[in-house]
């Protein structure tokens, strides 16, 4: 069965550079979520999209932006990178069932290292 695809799996950037992460949700899933997970930490919610519209926003820095495109894939853009941005970035998708958040299907993550 198709899973959530994230790319790239690994990337290394210098401080103040820009990075773009891509996420391809499971076909027919209408909701995409982005999470950030630091070493030994729990996943922190960044932002979500339902039917290509932003549906919820968490602790996402102003330097970060995201969008969901017409084909439902999503991109997380991160600018002016800081050392503290080094983390695993997960994308997850789900099929909305009413207004309650159901099961999320996670990708394998993109590991960002900022030097």
């Amino acid at each position: 069965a198709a899973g959530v695809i994230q790319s790239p799996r690994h990337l290394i950037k210098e401080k103040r550079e820009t990075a773009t992460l891509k996420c391809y949700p499971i076909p027919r899933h209408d909701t995409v979520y982005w999470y950030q997970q630091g070493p030994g930490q729990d996943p922190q919610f960044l932002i979500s999209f339902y039917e290509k519209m932003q549906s919820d926003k968490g602790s996402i820095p102003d330097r970060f932006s995201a969008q969901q495109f017409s084909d439902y894939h999503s991109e997380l853009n991160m600018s002016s990178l800081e050392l503290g941005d080094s983390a695993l970035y997960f994308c997850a998708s789900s099929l909305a069932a009413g207004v309650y958040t159901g099961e999320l299907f996670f990708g394998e993550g993109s590991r960002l290292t900022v030097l």
Partner: protein
Amino acid sequence: SQQGEEDPQALSIQEGENATMNCSYKTSINNLQWYRQNSGRGLVHLILIRSNEREKHSGRLRVTLDTSKKSSSLLITASRAADTASYFCATDAPWETSGSRLTFGEGTQLTVNP
């Protein structure tokens, strides 16, 4: 502060023993979910329990939910070395909007020794 706090932070047991992990949360919920994460990998959904349910089973997993105490427990019976992973509880947002967040607790690192 975290919506979900888990206890214990780390648990080490022998194969065949049972493992119990607890989660507490602060706000009202519609449902609570448990996820598993192998080191450096994506999270995998284990089980979802709705706010009007008190207990749910799935294979070797048993989840309880006490909304009056805002707490949940995950019991893994007859543990195996392959169960070694981090386990997170996650709660949905109290507001009713499609696509709203899941908030994860701090996780329990379970080690099952062969």
